[in-house]
């Protein structure tokens, strides 16, 4: 499985290479008050404004708080950026070794002697309160 490896403060995850569009270094992220917890903010990518997903928070961990790198991926209808704390790399993962329990992931693969969990992006977005079916945020009275 060819994938992009995303270093995170507490480990690493991988995104299937087919969904990845590009990697941006040290992108300026604008906070979006009121957005779901896992949304770090929004990013201006050459005129297109994308939500930035805090990858660690989306996977249930503590918020990383910043984005050293942003991996731009197709979230279906729109692009979305996922944070990484170190330079992402293209890798070839081996066959899945075991299913993963974390919501929004699609199994763990062996890579250079360690287990790397692969993200199921549509699932992860749903789990993080994003996607076209996400309930509205705010007063809900309008």
């Amino acid at each position, binding site marked *: 499985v060819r994938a992009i490896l995303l270093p995170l403060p507490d480990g690493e995850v991988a995104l299937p290479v087919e969904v990845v569009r590009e990697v941006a270094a040290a992108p300026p992220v604008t906070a979006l008050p009121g957005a779901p917890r896992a949304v770090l903010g929004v990013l201006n990518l050459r005129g297109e404004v994308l*939500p930035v997903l805090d990858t660690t928070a989306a996977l249930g961990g503590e918020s990383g708080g910043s984005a050293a790198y942003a991996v731009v991926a197709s979230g279906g209808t*729109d692009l979305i950026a996922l944070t990484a704390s170190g330079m992402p790399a293209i890798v070839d993962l081996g066959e899945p070794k075991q299913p993963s329990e974390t919501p929004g992931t699609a199994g763990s693969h062996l890579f250079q002697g360690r287990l790397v969990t692969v993200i199921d992006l549509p699932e992860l977005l749903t789990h993080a309160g994003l996607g076209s079916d996400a309930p*509205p945020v705010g*007063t809900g009275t*309008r």
Partner: protein
Amino acid sequence: MTVSGSEPRFRELFAEQAGPELDRMASDLLALENAGGNGIAERIDSLFRDAHNLKGGAAMVGLAEVRALAHAMEDLLEPLRAGAAAPTPEIVDQLLAAVDAMRELVPATARGEPYEVDVASMEVALRAAIPSGPPVPPEQTVPPVAPEPAGADRTPDPTGSVQVPLQHLNELVRLVGEGAGAQVRLGQRLAEQLHLDPSGVAEFRELSKVLGDLQRRATRSRMVPVAAVVEVLQRAARDLARRQGKQVRWTATGTGTELDRSVLEKLVDPLRHLVRNAVDHGLEPPAERVAAGKPAQGEIRMQVRQAGPDVIITIRDDGRGVDVQRVRAAAGVEPGTSTDEEVLQLIFRTGLSTAKEVTDISGRGVGLDVVRTNIRAVRGRIGVSSRLGAFTEFTISVPITLTVQRCLLVSSTGQRYAIPLHTVVTVLPSTQSEMMSEGRPTVWVGDRAVPASGLAEALDPAAPVDSGPVVVLAGVAWQHAFRVEELLGQRDVVVRGLSQLLPRMDCYIGVSAEADGSVVLVLDTSGLIEQARDRRGRAWSPLGPAVTAVAPPASPDRAAPHGHDGAATVLVVEDALTVRELQRAILERAGYRVLTATDGLAALAVAESHPVDLVLTDVSMPRMDGLELTRTLRSHPDLSGVGIIVVTSLASDEDRRRGRDAGADGYITKDQFDEQVLVDAVHRILGEPR
């Protein structure tokens, strides 16, 4: 190889050309009923020509059903054209029904698709309507009304135009925006890497100019005149009135005013609802009107005008009006707790109906709430005014375009936000203090207490509190004051929707992708206010109709003055928010205490109630201009000694003389205006502040 008219390409072409012809026929038919004796012959000629052309074209491309129907229309129009009959409502009914049928039949047959029109029955009905007796005088059909200006309600001549899918235009606008962003980045690159001032590079200047022109034209390409939907509304009124046996005269003015196509499309349903309401609820049956001393024929008047970045649309009927006491009872509002005007706005509340009967048109308490929701969806506002027995008038205010909005830019906790300028009521200085009312912060705006919150805390309860100026905003139903960190000025903002991946967030319209690579969040005033009110608790009572906020505040925008600690006080009178705030900032920095007002009348009220040493006034303002203010102050028993400086863009010698004659002590033209000029002028009259 031969070319056949029945080839798909020709049939498609015929269908494309038939669309505007059918629109024109519908428009002409509706105009016949409103035209009285004016222009009837020309309209009938036009109708006949169009029917004839449809018949000929359909025959050429082999669409027999269309040809047959057009022929029947022609037969019915022939006696009208010959003056042997007048266009009775029954004839207009048949012809409008035929136009409706054609609108389905033409594209379906051209593409070989199924259709539901019963052509044979319709032919019979059209021919059955052909009058056999002598012509009916026009006054027995519809009463005459003043004619609209020639061509005012006609579909624009399609000659020289092509239909372009809206998504192509949207893409064009987006690409132009990206081009402008790339141009700014190029300028930065020239400066950083080649140490060149971009404005000194002729090619860069030319690129900037071309991109600017392109951006304006691309935005304009999405604009369409409101006239494009008038026929639908007039038809709705006409058809319902016919069903209910009511007589209605329709007038529409200002329909050449343009709106962004996407805004106008979303307004059609709410406008149609209001028009049908006007017929069903508003207009009385003829006998009832006559008994009440009114003409038997009621009137529905649609007026459209542009007001700055907004288009204002009013729908007014001269019917029975809204019974405020019944609204009060239906809404359970205790007598004496709200004004009639406030109660009237409750008709937009979900589930509220005062109709005695439920019909298929209205009376179920649904409708006006949906109208309001639809108008809010295009960032618009709606209000209503009415007098029992006399009229009901709905006023809708919508931004001309959702793409580009004039915004006030502010910062809060270090982040920039854009607020649509048409929702800004006023700005109060950072020294403005809040009072507590029912345990919640409130500020005085004129003579009205407005709930207040920090912008940061309204967006995120965990955010720190700002301590800068207070921006008072008007949403659809409420006003609310927000303390921000800093005002950053005003400018046009290209608004894009938030990513579809994000959940709906009511406090944002969208975002602006800035040329420097940053993002500005564009606030949705109504959503923000709702959110702020939710966070404060929902115990507030309405502050009055949002539409009143369209007009400038009737009272001074700073009712609570600073304490008088010895520094001289300058009253800045200016209706333009930016100029007013600029002058305030300069004078406060120079050590003066500053009060502000938005016109001469408001200034007079402030000067009469607070100590003022100098008045700095604009000339052109609503209600009372600066020269009249100057003369009034000079003849005022208590204020005649106050210093007065006129700041204006009127720069001729004659203008200066008029200012001097009115009694001004100084005169600054805006083209020579800068901080030093203003401060020097104030110093000359007041001396330097201590």
